[in-house]
């Protein structure tokens, strides 16, 4: 495998574990950047129990199915998962929940016609839920990626979802203080990526990918296609490679 390097990539990924060896290193300090991993398993190998994981997707659009399947195989447990929904049907995020690997879900819309896996765990008291209005969820992730310490948002003011939170009147309008959501890992899906980690997406499958990449120590993108360096139009790159640590092609 080619060398991979980068500041964040040298840290253990997630959780409280301190001792995990860096998954990869670049002892020779070769100058070539290559964030492309040969397999999903290799890209996920160092995820620790207890990690906070951002998972992209809105319903099935943009859902990194292969990475989630890889995480089930990898077996990290006690995870906190941040995603818009809490799984559909029996595959993807629903399968991860069903495998008992998730302690807590942070999301905006868990209950859907086909969210039976989450529903059952929730009613049985086997999973924790933090419900966040969708725009606050997005902005909390964006704030983490942008280095913002907290922000005042009008969304949710005066509702159950703002109970106990600090509020402030600014220019005659009421706001609620919300904090960023930082994560150890982001699992996202993009259309194409290159070895510098630049990404482009496809249609509404973009959704949470770009902001989740910014808010995690290690952003792992599954792509349908690897682009040669320079092939992606710099004017059209959606996620600049600085935000992405690992790229893996999936079938």
């Amino acid at each position, binding site marked *: 495998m080619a060398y991979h390097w980068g500041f964040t990539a040298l840290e253990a990924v997630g959780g409280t574990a301190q001792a995990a060896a860096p998954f990869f290193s670049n002892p020779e300090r070769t100058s070539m950047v290559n964030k492309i991993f040969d397999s999903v398993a290799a890209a996920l190998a160092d995820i620790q129990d207890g990690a906070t994981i951002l998972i992209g997707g809105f319903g099935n659009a943009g859902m990194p199915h292969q990475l989630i399947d890889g995480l089930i195989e990898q077996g990290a447990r006690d995870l906190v998962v941040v995603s818009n929904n809490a799984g559909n049907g029996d595959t993807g995020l629903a399968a991860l929940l069903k495998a008992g690997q998730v302690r807590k879900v942070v999301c905006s819309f868990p*209950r*859907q016609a086909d969210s039976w896996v989450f529903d059952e765990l929730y009613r049985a008291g086997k999973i924790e*839920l933090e419900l966040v209005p969708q*725009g*606050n969820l997005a902005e909390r992730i964006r704030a983490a990626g942008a280095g913002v310490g907290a922000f005042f948002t*009008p*969304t949710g003011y005066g509702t159950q979802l703002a109970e106990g939170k600090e509020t402030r009147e600014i220019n005659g309008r009421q706001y609620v203080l919300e904090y960023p959501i930082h994560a150890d890992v982001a699992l996202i899906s993009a259309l194409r990526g290159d070895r510098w980690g630049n990404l482009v997406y496809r249609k*509404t499958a973009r*959704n949470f990918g770009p*902001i989740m990449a910014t808010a995690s120590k290690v952003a792992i993108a599954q792509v349908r296609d690897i682009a040669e360096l320079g092939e992606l139009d710099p004017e059209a790159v959606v996620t600049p490679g600085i935000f992405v640590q690992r790229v893996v092609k999936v079938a």
Partner: protein
Amino acid sequence: MQKRDRNQIAARVAQDIPGGAYVNLGIGLPTLVANHLPPEREVILHTENGLLGMGPAPAKGEEDDDLINAGKQPVTALPGAAFFHHADSFAMMRGGHLDICVLGAFQVSRRGDLANWHTGAPDAIPAVGGAMDLAIGARKVYVMMEHLTKTGESKLVDTCTYPLTGVACVSRVYTDLAVLDITPEGVRVVEIIDGLDFDELQRLSGITLLR
């Protein structure tokens, strides 16, 4: 008296959406409004999962899993459409860039509080999605709902008994019986369906109405 059906309410809402408006139609009943916007009137539809310039449902067999609306239904993108990520999409709402959003409701209070995300039932699994962002984000929030519940209680109320989605955020309410504006003075009747008079509407409504 012939109550307006869902499509007639949607058609009435559509009358109030001018060309050039940026509009978000909430999940459920409000999506019907799109069917009543005349094609020559250019209205740009926003869907919060990341698309401006949303077009109608694709023909059978033309569905694209990567091109869906907030209700996760397949849609199309019109010429001129743009895709964007979630933080940008909600900036469009919260930042006051959307002209109008149309939402369904369980209840609207006389000062324009909206309850539409949660019945408050103890065994219900809560889910909020973008409802709270839409409620406080768009410049004008139009609500489409039946005037009365199935058991005949007014959905226009003094104080919402269901959990709130947003405080004092509703501009106008379209029901099967009337169109009403939420104003600083109170709820003002804009129009009443044929065959129903103000006094009867007042009798059915849970709050004092202004003419």
